């Protein structure tokens, strides 16, 4: 069992990257040394009993030199609203690193990383670690329009080959990210023993990515998001229906069995 910490950490920076989308940086060397791509932190957004529950956020990026962890979030409810109002210098209580992260199989040479909207949050850290391992990363980033594209410059600076799609055609490929992925898979013949797909985003998008992965026989992993209570596998509140190896179905916990699930497990 991996170690887990609970700690009050200081907010070192907070930046609004796009409308209602924030990048928050906290000081937490222990998370930096333990956290794996795809794992998440469970954050208490304040001392008040309302909003009551913690909020799970993926580790967006770590900086081993500064001992900092960055978190990317969009204001979608009361918890993220409170977080968006927190100031640099304030502290926030976190638990982590939690969950099962991404795991590229040995021998993976090419990664097709498919991010829809805020789906970039867990995939940035993954990309960084894959590039460091010498894996060629083709990063497919999709959004409704140019304004909602996140982290393009940062992704390019990692050394990823960035492919963009927008629903309205205001930047990159005009259409859905799954269409862009389909074109790419059809055009280039990827060696399916050395290629993997990693994807996060809206459920419908991931469903499309999953069916393409099956059609082209490329292993894939997906990071799922669900409302959680405990975050540590105790309450069974965040379950999703999964396929078992024997062909049956069972509920698995997004917080402890996931949040990253294999193509063979997921049911969209």
């Amino acid at each position, binding site marked *: *069992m991996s170690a887990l910490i609970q700690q009050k950490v200081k907010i070192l920076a907070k930046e609004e990257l796009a409308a209602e989308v924030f990048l928050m940086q906290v000081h937490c060397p222990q998370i930096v040394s333990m956290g794996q791509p795809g794992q998440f932190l469970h954050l*208490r957004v304040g001392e008040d009993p309302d909003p*009551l529950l*913690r909020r799970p956020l993926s580790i967006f990026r770590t900086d081993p030199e500064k001992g900092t962890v960055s978190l990317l979030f969009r204001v979608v409810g009361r918890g993220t609203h409170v977080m968006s109002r927190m100031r640099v210098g304030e502290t926030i209580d976190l638990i982590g690193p939690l969950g099962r992260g991404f795991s590229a199989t040995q021998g993976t040479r090419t990664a097709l990383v498919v991010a829809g909207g805020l789906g970039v949050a867990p995939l940035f850290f993954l990309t960084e670690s894959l590039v460091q391992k010498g894996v060629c990363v083709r990063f497919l980033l999709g959004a409704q329009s140019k304004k909602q594209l996140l982290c393009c410059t940062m992704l390019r600076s990692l050394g990823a080959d960035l492919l963009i799609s927008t629903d309205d055609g205001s930047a990159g490929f005009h259409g859905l990210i799954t269409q862009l992925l389909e074109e790419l898979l059809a055009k280039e013949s990827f060696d399916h023993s050395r290629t993997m797909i990693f994807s996060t985003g809206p459920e419908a998008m991931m469903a499309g990515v999953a069916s393409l992965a099956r059609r082209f026989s490329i292993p894939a992993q997906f990071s799922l998001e669900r*409302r*959680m209570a*405990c975050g*540590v*596998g105790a309450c069974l509140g*965040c379950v999703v229906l999964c396929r078992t190896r024997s062909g049956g179905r069972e509920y698995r916990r997004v917080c402890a069995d996931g949040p990253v699930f294999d193509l063979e497990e997921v049911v969209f």
Partner: protein
Amino acid sequence: MSRPTSVGYVEEILKADLSVQLASLRLKNPVLVASGTYGWGQEYRDLLDPNLLGGLITKAVTLHPREGNPPPRVAETRCGMLNAIGLANVGVDVFVREKLPFLQSLKTAVIVNVAGSTTEEYVQVVKKLEGQPGIEALEINISCPNVKEGGMALGSDPREAFRLLSAVRKATKRLLIAKLSPNVTDIAAIAQSAADAGVEAVSLVNTLLGMAIDVQTHRPLLSTVVGGLSGPAIKPVALAMVWKVAQKVSLPVIGVGGIMTAEDAVEFILAGACAVQVGTANFVDPHAPLNIIQGLEKACAQRGLREIRELVGKMVLENDAHEIR
């Protein structure tokens, strides 16, 4: 040994005795973790040493494995949360084989929560646990609101509760605690039935029936529409019920419902609870049980009490104001 022990000795005698007696069971402190919020005891162990707890109550165990309700199973509400887990658990056989060994290794009171759809199922679970060492008590769950059969249905009627608990009583010599539902007209009547059936203690309350609707999609936030409300939102309701039962029924009461802080625990103790359970607070802050234990020590010190037991049921009412200490 570097320092003389006199300072330590003074602290020792000033440190209040937090141990409480729950019928025949001695708890080292009155803070237990509530069923369903603490899994099988292992999930939080990196964050809090379970041996510090007064006791640990497992997730409900049923005769057969249960997959539970479809998602979504949890939703946040103002100062509270709704759940509809539906007694998802591995079943008693797997529990004994895979979960119990860890619990047996703990130096805290392990209480197994037992649930079923029929009286016979409760009895069979209890019998399968009979003879297993390391279980200090059984908490009989006659109050789960999230299952179609059994659970709350068996615990809402005093006669039904009496029948069920009497059958369970005959099946075991273990200490029995009945966990009661607040979704009844008269909780004291149910508690009295539990006493009549030979149960040694009652814990109250389980979750309150509640629901919430997403006004964007017009859909309920829980798959089951109605679920169980817990958290600070229900604390005053739970407190009133604990007080009522403590007044009317001569059984030890374990208070549970929205306890987040030591002050909350003190309220329940003043109302007559001899122990408390921390539930939803574990999700918010895994250190909550420890903070409450330490806060209770402080509460005793502030009041000049040497034993937490002296505080049980000591709410001051207008007509006995002369008893203020």
